[in-house]
């Protein structure tokens, strides 16, 4: 029970179901909460959490020991959510590949400073629609296209909203 996440992942890679259970108990909760802030449909969030741990079961061997397991898990969870959202909307083309390998932790580090000071206040004054776009593109590092499928809006609208958010925040900070 006191094994590190990295140890658990190598046990999972060897087919240890109990290790998967322990990892699930440690991480499913916060992953679910975080996904819930990106998708209002609880069923889709449930499916994404499920897909995440199925993916962990199948791909644990691909985890590199020097990495941070929680960041790795979040990267998978966010991709699974996008995948579920994409399936839910009309799937147009088999060739629509998912952009692999999102680095989340570095952006998170930068955003820690946001709460304090004017930038945080300017952010909080944005409309929910604009905040959702900023969250997806800045915090989660998604492309405009990925953001579009997550939010169910056209990619052009994503770009317009991102520009509007940027302009509003800059204006807010300049006054």
């Amino acid at each position, binding site marked *: 029970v006191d094994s590190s996440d990295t140890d658990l992942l190598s046990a999972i890679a060897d087919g240890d*179901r109990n290790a*998967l*259970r322990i990892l*699930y*108990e*440690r*991480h*499913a*909760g*916060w992953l*679910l*909460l*975080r996904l*819930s*802030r990106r998708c209002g449909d609880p069923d889709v969030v*449930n499916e994404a*959490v*499920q897909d995440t*741990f*199925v993916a962990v*079961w199948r791909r644990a061997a691909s985890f590199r020991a020097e990495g*941070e397991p*929680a*960041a790795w898990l*979040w990267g998978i969870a966010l991709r699974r959510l996008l*995948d579920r959202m*994409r*399936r839910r909307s009309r*799937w*147009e*083309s*088999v*060739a*629509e*590949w*998912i952009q692999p390998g999102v680095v*989340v*932790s570095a952006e*998170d*580090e930068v*955003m*820690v400073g*946001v*709460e304090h000071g004017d*930038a*945080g*206040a300017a*952010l*909080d004054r*944005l409309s929910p629609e604009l*905040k959702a776009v*900023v*969250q997806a593109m800045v*915090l989660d590092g998604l492309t405009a296209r990925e953001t579009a499928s997550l939010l169910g809006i056209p990619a052009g609208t994503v770009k317009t909203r991102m520009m509007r958010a940027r302009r509003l925040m800059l204006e807010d900070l300049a006054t």
Partner: protein
Amino acid sequence: MTWHPSADAISAYAINRLPSSQAWSIEAHVAGCDPCRRAAADLPGAARLEAIWEATLEQVDAPRRSVVEMALGAVGVPEHLRGSWRPPRRSRFPGWRR
């Protein structure tokens, strides 16, 4: 780590009652802080988490899918279409049809 969000703040985050700037700070912190992850672990509710776990186990126990099925899954082909995969026939229409 010196600063930790309060239990109240994490609870408020869990029910989406925090401004984005604070919510993002909590997310950034929780992702890297084991005690805070554990504090958040039960907030979605035991019943919901158990149901997801059961569904996860079912898939873990299911027979491994073929390489083709997995590739189709990776590019977003819905599960119910993957089982009946066969090489696409020449079609006048772009994209895939059932």
